[in-house]
């Protein structure tokens, strides 16, 4: 479908990166060899909690081919995005099974692994604390006894000394107790999401090299090159400009590669090996059990409603299972709190969101940043309330969704530019023919329909920014330099589209330098939070406009006109009132030369930037403030078929609507939604880490932890885009990367209520759980 105004924005332009990927030529860190490169392996703790009494590395060091052996005592560096609670290798104690305790760099991976086997560690196991609901109690054993000594991001987070509470976020709006007392129906329910792994197809990988002059050069499979640089600088005590970070193609991130993980260890091993490049590649088992996952969440919701279906009060306690380290977890606890009542108008709100340490693999950013977990409980509670009142769940939601003029639970006023959750819900309801019962299923099967809404704003600091550089080349083409990462979501393609439209040139002439390199690519905060297309788009527009300003400046002199009389179209600058006076960009891009040789202008390099506008920190007592650059609303409508004899669920149909504002590339947008929906189905039906009583991970492999395969996909999917323009978004776009996954489990569980009359409170909805529920209880 052609957009009258734009040639490329809004079009299904194909990816440039498809070619290297489909020919197997795209280089990921997994594929890279550097001259002199050696390999590293780690020794990991077998215990969930233990003191380290002694480590003997003598035999390991003497194994031929070993270049360096490191233990925690060798590395006095602290790490942590928000709370500096982590060390590069465990020192003095281990806090989760799978935590690295020692590392070896050697000529071959086999030698490194063999050397790890030769390291003797004497542990004194202690009783691990595994359930955050126990860990939060005042008498619980402490995962971090020295929490009070850690530095942390003040004004935003507040770890509670001498507890396991890494952060406590509060939302206080109105008077919840009075409102509950005045409610006609109070619903009080508990919900649970287990921790769950990201499962990128490319595991974490890094090659680090310590260079002379205390410099570090790092190639890493990471989402945020500048964050890697910044955190390495912080933890190793090096100036930022001493550290160079490259990010080539990466094989998926989903938040698991958002921060810093194996890089500090690789850097230290390189130093200890006399400056050899050191490559660390996580095995799939390490990806499951050593590298961080999605936090688990225990939810209690108390929802007060009137008998005609209006929400009066929303109270929630979210207890996040942060695992052994806070990482992004504290920010998830914060963000999920301010989003924690769903996209509804809630006049009275009381939320406590606790991020709690336990002795398990720690949590980090994961697509949705807490919103899938929170909306599991919220959308199930809403459903329960509606049904108990005897109100159609669709009508109930429509009656409460945020509309223009409403205030959110942090006091933000909804404007016309916010987006329309009601239109999203309406769209999916129509798509699944809500209101018409499912066609009768064959014997032994039951069908049902369910809906759920979603919302998310980018969870980002108030100073989040992005910058872009566009260089015009001597042939009239343009190169974009930017350090957000395209990990498959396709943002680079949309930025090329934007640049092509802004620069008025053919898209074939616009390239984006694929590899991010902090030496050349200008600063971008992180490729997370569904804000890269938004901020990168704005920065690219600004950079392109800066290029055109320079084009017009040079062209004006060359064409003997004033700059404001110069227009640009089809790769040419021309005098608007006399179009015969024109010059193609390639005569201007490197400066303009007159007939007699005089030259003016010079190489055209445009730069642009964008910084978050108007965001504020949240009040520590009430949570009031403006944390959201924009909100993206959405909804899913699902029809399921349940095999009532086995409990197996088939997704017959899932329709997803998102108000993504202007859809920059409909093909990429559809692909993003389908991928996120299937990942959501994974969370809904199959996924979750399982630990035994000793805190040992039981299912840390593909054999034991299943994700959807090509045979597990829905029979039908549909993607609908509501395009309410985002006023400050590039061409009116807002982010949509995480959203397709959020509320998928909620919608499926709501469909199960319709299909089999059972209310589920815990994920995943395995066939066994469905079977057991059908056969042991019925809730009508």
């Amino acid at each position, binding site marked *: 479908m052609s957009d009258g105004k734009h040639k490329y924005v809004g079009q299904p332009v194909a990816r440039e990166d498809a070619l290297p990927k489909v020919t197997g030529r*795209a280089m990921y860190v997994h594929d890279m060899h550097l001259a002199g490169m050696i390999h590293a392996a780690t020794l990991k703790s077998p215990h969930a909690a233990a003191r380290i009494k002694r480590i003997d590395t003598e035999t390991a060091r003497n194994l031929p081919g070993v270049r360096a052996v490191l233990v925690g005592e060798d590395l006095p560096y602290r790490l942590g995005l928000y709370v500096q609670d982590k060390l590069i290798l465990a020192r003095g104690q281990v806090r989760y099974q799978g935590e690295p305790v020692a590392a070896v760099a050697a000529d071959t991976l086999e030698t490194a692994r063999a050397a790890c086997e030769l390291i003797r560690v004497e542990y004194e196991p202690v009783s691990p604390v595994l359930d955050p609901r126990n860990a939060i109690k005042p008498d619980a054993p402490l995962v971090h006894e020295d929490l009070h000594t850690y530095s942390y991001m003040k004004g935003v987070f507040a770890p509670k000394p001498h507890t396991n509470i890494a952060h406590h976020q509060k939302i206080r709006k109105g008077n919840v107790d009075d409102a509950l007392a005045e409610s006609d129906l109070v619903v009080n329910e508990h919900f649970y999401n287990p921790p769950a792994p990201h499962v990128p197809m490319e595991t974490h990988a890094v090659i680090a090299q310590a260079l002379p002059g205390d410099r570090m050069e790092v190639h890493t499979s990471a989402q945020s090159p500048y964050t890697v640089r910044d955190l390495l600088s912080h933890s190793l005590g090096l100036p930022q400009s001493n550290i160079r970070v490259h990010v080539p193609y990466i094989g998926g991130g989903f938040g698991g590669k958002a921060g810093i993980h194996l890089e500090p260890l690789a850097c230290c091993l390189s130093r200890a090996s006399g400056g050899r490049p050191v490559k660390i590649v996580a095995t799939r088992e390490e990806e499951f059990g050593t590298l961080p996952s999605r936090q688990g969440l225990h939810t209690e919701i108390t929802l007060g409603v009137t008998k005609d279906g209006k929400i009066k009060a929303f109270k929630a306690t979210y207890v996040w299972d942060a695992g052994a380290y806070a990482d992004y977890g504290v920010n998830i606890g914060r963000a999920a709190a301010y989003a924690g009542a769903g996209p509804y108008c809630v006049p009275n709100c009381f939320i406590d969101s606790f991020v709690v340490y336990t002795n398990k693999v720690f949590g980090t950013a994961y697509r949705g940043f807490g919103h899938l977990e929170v909306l599991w409980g919220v959308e199930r509670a809403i459903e329960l309330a509606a049904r108990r009142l005897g109100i159609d769940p669709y009508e109930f939601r429509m009656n409460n969704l945020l509309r223009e003029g409403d205030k959110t639970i942090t006091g933000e006023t909804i404007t016309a530019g916010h987006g329309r959750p009601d239109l999203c819900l309406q769209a999916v309801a129509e798509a699944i023919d809500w209101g018409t019962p499912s066609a009768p299923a064959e014997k032994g099967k039951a069908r049902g329909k369910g809906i759920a809404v979603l919302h998310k704003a980018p969870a980002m600091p108030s100073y989040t920014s992005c910058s872009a550089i566009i260089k015009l080349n001597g042939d009239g083409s343009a190169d974009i330099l930017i350090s957000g990462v395209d990990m498959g979501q396709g943002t680079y393609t949309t930025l090329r589209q934007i640049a092509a439209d802004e620069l008025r040139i053919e898209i074939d002439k616009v390239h984006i330098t694929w590899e991010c390199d902090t030496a050349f690519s200008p600063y971008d905060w992180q490729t997370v939070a569904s804000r890269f297309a938004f901020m990168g788009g704005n920065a690219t527009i600004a950079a392109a406009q800066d290029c055109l300003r320079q084009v017009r400046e040079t062209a004006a002199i060359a064409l003997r006109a004033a700059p404001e009389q110069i227009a640009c179209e089809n790769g040419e600058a021309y005098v608007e009132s006399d179009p015969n006076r024109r010059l193609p960009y390639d005569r201007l891009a490197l400066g303009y030369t007159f007939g007699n040789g005089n030259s003016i202008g010079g190489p055209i390099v445009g730069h642009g930037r964008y910084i978050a506008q108007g965001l504020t920190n949240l009040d520590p007592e009430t949570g009031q403030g403006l944390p959201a650059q924009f909100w993206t609303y959405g909804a899913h409508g699902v029809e399921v078929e349940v095999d009532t004899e086995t409990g197996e669920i088939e997704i017959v149909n899932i329709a997803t609507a998102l108000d993504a504002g202007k859809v920059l590339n409909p093909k990429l947008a559809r692909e993003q939604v389908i991928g996120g929906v299937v990942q959501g189905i994974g969370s809904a039906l199959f996924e979750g880490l399982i630990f035994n009583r000793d805190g040992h991970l039981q299912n840390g492999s593909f054999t034991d932890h299943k994700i959807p395969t090509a045979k597990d996909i829905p029979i039908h999917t549909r993607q609908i885009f509501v395009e309410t323009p985002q006023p400050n978004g590039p061409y009116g776009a807002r982010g949509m990367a995480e959203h397709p996954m959020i509320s998928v489990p909620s919608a499926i569980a709501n469909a199960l209520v319709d299909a089999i009359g059972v209310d589920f409170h815990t994920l995943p909805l395995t066939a066994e759980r469905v079977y057991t529920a059908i056969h042991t209880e019925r809730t009508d």
Partner: protein
Amino acid sequence: MAKLHDIAVTVNGELETLSVPAGMTLLELLRDRLYLTGTKEGCGAGECGACTVILGDRPVNACLILAAETDGKEVRTVEGEASAASLSVLQQSFIDAGAIQCGFCTPGMIMSARALLARNPNPSDEEIKEAVAGNLCRCTGYEAIINAVRMAAKREAVTRQ
């Protein structure tokens, strides 16, 4: 020092003669010795399909094949899919159908699909799913990949006429 095995294996039509230790897998041979890094390691245990190559005429997980046993055999990898002149119809179909996001599963998917179309030029959607069910993807949700293979089958049928 472990004994080495001399092998002569044909990879994408090129005869390669090497000496390999018994414990080296075909995946390591391809990636570390022949620098054909298109074939990926996703798990090393035959569960994810990222390392799918065609051995003889059958798609297999290269991580569970010993290099030593490929003596006298033919291996095709993603690097052999395109001709010198152009992408294959299958590769172009993957691009056109939007079946590529992060790209890490793509080489394995291509090889599974290539082997499928060789044995079944007109596969049903169920047959396509069965052929690629052993290739895990986290990005695309598989729908576009199935569309790509269906598209390729149609296009290849047209070119055969």
